[in-house]
C-alpha cells in the first residue's frame, strides 16, 4: 500500500471519513504520521473554538472582577478561583459525570456527554477563567494618564472604554494571552484521557499516538511525531498572535513596539 493511499484512507479518519479500521500490524511511518496528523484536527477544533468563545467571556469576567459592585465582583472572583485553582483533568472528569447525571435526570442533553460538546464547554470555561485573570491584571495596569486624557476629551462610559481602556488592556495583556493560547492547545490533548469516550476511535493526536505506542511498544516514533505537530502548531499560534500584536501596536514606532517572545515566566 503506497503512502498516498494511506493518506487518502486515514487523513480524515478522526472525523469519520475514510477507512474505518485502524491499522493492526505492520505499522508504517506513513500511517503513524497520517493518523496522528488526522487527530490534530480535533486539537485545533477544541483550541480554536474555546479561544474564540472564551475571549468574549474572559473580557466580561475581567470587567466584572474590576467592578466595584460586589454582586458582580464576587461571582467573577469565585469563577476564576474555581477554574484556576483546580486541575483541568479533574474538571473534565467532574463535568463528564455531571453531564451524565443531567442526561439521566432530564432525558435530554445527551450531546453534552460526547467529547465534541462537553469537553469544549469545559475548555471554554477554563480558558475564560485563565484569560480573565490576565485581562483583569492588564485592566488594572492601564496607565492613569490615558484615562485622564480621555476624561479631558470629554469621553465617558462606553466610548471611553471602547476607544481607550479596552485597546490598551489588550495591548498589555497580549503577550500573556499568547502564552495562554499555546497552553490551551496543549491542554486539548487531555480530553480523550479524562472520561470523555472516543466514539469509534475518533479522537485527537495524542490518542492515536498512544494507540501506536501501545501496539508497537515503541514510544520513540509516535510521541516525537506528536511533538513535531505541536511544535508546528505552536509556531502557527505565535505567528498569528504576532500579527495581532502588530495590529494592536500599529500606532507605535517600529523600534519600540513590544515584541512577542516565547519565553514566558508565567505558565498556566
Amino acid at each position, binding site marked *: 500500500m503506497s503512502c498516498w493511499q494511506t493518506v487518502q484512507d486515514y487523513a480524515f479518519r478522526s472525523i469519520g471519513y475514510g477507512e474505518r479500521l485502524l491499522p493492526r500490524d505492520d505499522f508504517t511511518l506513513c500511517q503513524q504520521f497520517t493518523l496522528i496528523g488526522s487527530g490534530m484536527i480535533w486539537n485545533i477544533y477544541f483550541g480554536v473554538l474555546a479561544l474564540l468563545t472564551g475571549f468574549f467571556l474572559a473580557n466580561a469576567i475581567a470587567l466584572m472582577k474590576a467592578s466595584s459592585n460586589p454582586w458582580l465582583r464576587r461571582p467573577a472572583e469565585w469563577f476564576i478561583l474555581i477554574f484556576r485553582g483546580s486541575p483541568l483533568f479533574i474538571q473534565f472528569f467532574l463535568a463528564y459525570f455531571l453531564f451524565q447525571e443531567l442526561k439521566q435526570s432530564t432525558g435530554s442533553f445527551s450531546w453534552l456527554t460526547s467529547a465534541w460538546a462537553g469537553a469544549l464547554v469545559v475548555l471554554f470555561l477554563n480558558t475564560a477563567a485563565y484569560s480573565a485573570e490576565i485581562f483583569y491584571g492588564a485592566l488594572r495596569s492601564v496607565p492613569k494618564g490615558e484615562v485622564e486624557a480621555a476624561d479631558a476629551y470629554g469621553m465617558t462610559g462606553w466610548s471611553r472604554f471602547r476607544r481607550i481602556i479596552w485597546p490598551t488592556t489588550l495591548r498589555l495583556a497580549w503577550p500573556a494571552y499568547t502564552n495562554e493560547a499555546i497552553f490551551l492547545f496543549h491542554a486539548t490533548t487531555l480530553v480523550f484521557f479524562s472520561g470523555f469516550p472516543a466514539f469509534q476511535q475518533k479522537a485527537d493526536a495524542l490518542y492515536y499516538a498512544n494507540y501506536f505506542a501501545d501496539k508497537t*511498544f515503541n514510544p520513540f516514533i509516535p510521541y516525537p511525531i506528536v511533538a513535531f505537530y505541536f511544535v508546528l502548531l505552536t509556531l502557527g499560534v505565535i505567528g498569528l498572535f504576532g500579527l495581532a500584536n502588530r495590529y494592536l501596536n500599529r500606532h507605535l514606532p517600529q523600534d519600540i513596539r513590544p515584541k512577542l517572545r516565547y519565553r514566558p515566566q508565567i505558565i498556566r
Partner: protein
Amino acid sequence: MFSYCSDPSTLSGLTWLSCYLTTPKHAGFYWSFLTVLTLLAVTAPTALAFGFGGAAAARSRIAPLRWFGKSYIAVVRGVPDIAFFLFFVIALDQAFEWLRHQWKCPDWSEPIRQGNDFVVCAAAKLPLGTSEQWVHEVYGFFTAVLTFAIVFGAFSANVLYGAMRAVPKGQIETAEAYGMTRRQTFWRVLVPQMWVYALPGLSNLWMVLIKATPLLFLLGVEDIVYWARELGGSKTPRFTDYPHGDWRLWYFLALLVFYLCFTKLSEVVLERIMKKLTRGQATLGGTV
C-alpha cells in the same frame, strides 16, 4: 472501624455514612492523598535541581552543553506535558531495561526489538518478575517522579535562566572587577541574588505542579483519581456491604475541593515568602 458497623444493612443516615467512609477500601483512598503529597515533596526539589542544571547548561560557555540546555528547555516547553508523561513512562522503563540488559547479559545474540515486542533477558527485567507487589508499585512511583522531574525541570530551567539574566549586570561586573573567577561569580554573586527574581515564576510553577498531580493516574499509579473512579462507581449488594449508585460525581467534587483548598493555601504561603524575600530589596515590593 466502629463497633456498630458490624451489620451495615441495618444502618441508615449519618451512621451509615460514617461506616461507609471508614471501610478499608476508603483507607486506600485516604492513603493515596499521601501518595500525591509525597510525589510533590519529592518532585519539587528534584525538578528544581534539574532546572538548575538545565539553566546552568543553557548559559554555559561550552557550545554543546549550551545547545543541550537550550534544546531541553525549548523541546519540553513546546510540546504538551501529557505527551511527555506518556512518552517517558515507557521510554525510561525501556532505557533502564536496555542498560541492565547490556550489563547483565552481554552474550545475548537476539535483537531486543522483535517486531512489536521489546525483549530483554529475564535477569534484566525491571522490576524482576519474581519480586513482590510493593516493589512494582515503588518502581512505578519512581518512574513517575523521574518523569515529572524531567518535565518540570525544563519549566524551572526556563524560570531560573530568566532569573539569572535578570540579576543586574553591575553586580556581575563588580564581582569581575574584584578579580573573581567565572565560577566564583556564579556561586557567590549570581546564585544568591537570582532567587528573588525567580520566585514569581517558581511559585507559579508550584501551582502548575499541584495541578499536574492528577496526571499520575495516566502513569498507572494508584492515585486519588484512580480511587475516586473505583469507589465512586455504582455498587450492587452482591459485591459489597455498602451498595450505592453512581457516586463518581461526588467523589470528583471532593477532589476538586481538595485541590482548591491546596492551591489557595499555597497561594497564601507563597505570598508570605515573597514578602519576606523582598524586604529591603530595591523593588516596588521591597519599599513597603
